């Protein structure tokens, strides 16, 4: 805290509109250095694997649950296998329209997930979240 550190963001959502909304809301917080959206979790994972993270930089991942091919849970499971050197540079937030209790409970089981957020993302919620960084 103290000095304003900028954050990187990755948005993973199969809805292009939701990606757009997230990008806008994130940019509007003024705490964002860079935001990238992926409509496919597989592509997001590939990008995370191939990107060399600068040591002082932290990246926030916002990931949807229900997506075709690789869903949010599968993404998180694959992500958690990447090793602590990679994992510690990221914080995951799950963002979903789901009101299914099993989905909500399941999110709690993943240590890499910080919190479950309800859609739609808005600047109040995100602002409150980012105040800790």
């Amino acid at each position, binding site marked *: 805290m103290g000095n304003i550190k900028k954050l990187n963001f990755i948005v993973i959502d199969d*809805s292009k509109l939701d990606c757009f909304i997230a990008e806008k809301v994130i940019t509007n917080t003024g705490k964002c250095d860079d935001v990238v959206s992926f409509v496919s979790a597989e592509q997001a994972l590939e990008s995370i694997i191939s990107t060399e993270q600068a040591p002082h930089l932290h990246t926030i991942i916002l990931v949807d649950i229900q997506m075709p091919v690789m869903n949010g849970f599968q993404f998180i499971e694959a992500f958690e296998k990447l090793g602590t050197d990679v994992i510690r540079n990221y914080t995951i937030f799950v963002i979903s*329209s789901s009101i299914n209790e099993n989905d909500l409970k399941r999110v709690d089981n993943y240590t890499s997930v910080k919190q479950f957020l309800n859609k739609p993302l808005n600047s109040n919620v995100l602002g409150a979240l980012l105040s800790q960084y």
Partner: protein
Amino acid sequence: MNNKNKIKVLYIDDEQNNLVGFKATFRFDYNILIAIDTDQAYNHLKAHPDISVILCDQRMPEITGSIFFEEMKDRYPDPVRMLITGYSDIESVIDAVNKGHIYRYIKKPWTDADIRSAIEEGNKYYISTSMLAVKNKELQAAYDELGKFTYSVTHDLRGPLLSVIGAIDLAKNMDDLTEIRSLLNMMDDAVKKLDEFIRNTHEYYNLKRGKLIFEKIDFNKLMADAASIFNIAGRMDNVHFISKVDQDEDFYSDENSIKIILNNLFSNAFKFQKKNGSEKFVSTNINISNGNAEIIVKDNGIGIDESHINKIFTMFYRATSDEPGSGFGLYNVKDAITRLGGTIKVESALNEGTTFIVSLPSKETEP
């Protein structure tokens, strides 16, 4: 009466003469299987899962009838069990009845009428309980499907709605008209997706619960209707819609189902085109001959990856996130085709295109 429609009865007795006599007496009215010991009885039960009534003598050298029933009923619960016994065994009969091992007993010496009425009654009981089991199974399947359905429906209905709410929230603080317009376009897509989903749900319901009406199908007219819709969509995205119909004979089927099949195949073919492809096309070839309609819908779009091709007809399955979809369309297509007694095949190569081959029989009689 055809042997197939006769009630299937298994009779077990350790005396060969009784077996032969029993079979001779009842074989015209029932499909009689006989067994001289429980080994033979088990063989019959294994080979004939449709046995509805079992009659077994109580006094046999290796095992009593009531103990045999007690042993076999967990493995073969469906057939109705009846014990044939003399008065001196009445204690064991009472025990067997109370434990639920037998449906009724027949007193020795029996008359033909005793046996007949026992078989008829037993068969009625068998039919009603086995129907109940089938209905229960159907109900359980419908219930499971409803659970899955509600989960996905919640997501697919709420998803676009929440997107639009989020977009409206954003737009409130936007001043740039160009930006607002592009947001409006995206909202438009989200709302259309919602509408498509609701229409698909309606189709799904119609297919599941609706009655098929078999009437003359004019494929030329169906294709002309489809062309008027898809030509416009095609012009916007530069996709040629080519169709050829070869129908010289009458064809009967359910028009609504066929429309659902065609519409879904076409909208998929248009949706899954390559973004920057050249000479994009959707071609349809319909050929009616010998009471069979073959419908081939071919495109040169993005194709389907081999690892997904077996799952594309599964409800809510989506093989790509490149285009919005409900995961409902091909499920409905397959469901409609199955109900019409037809088949569907798919051939596809990634980046080359997809071909669906539908074959439907003409249905001249009522379903």
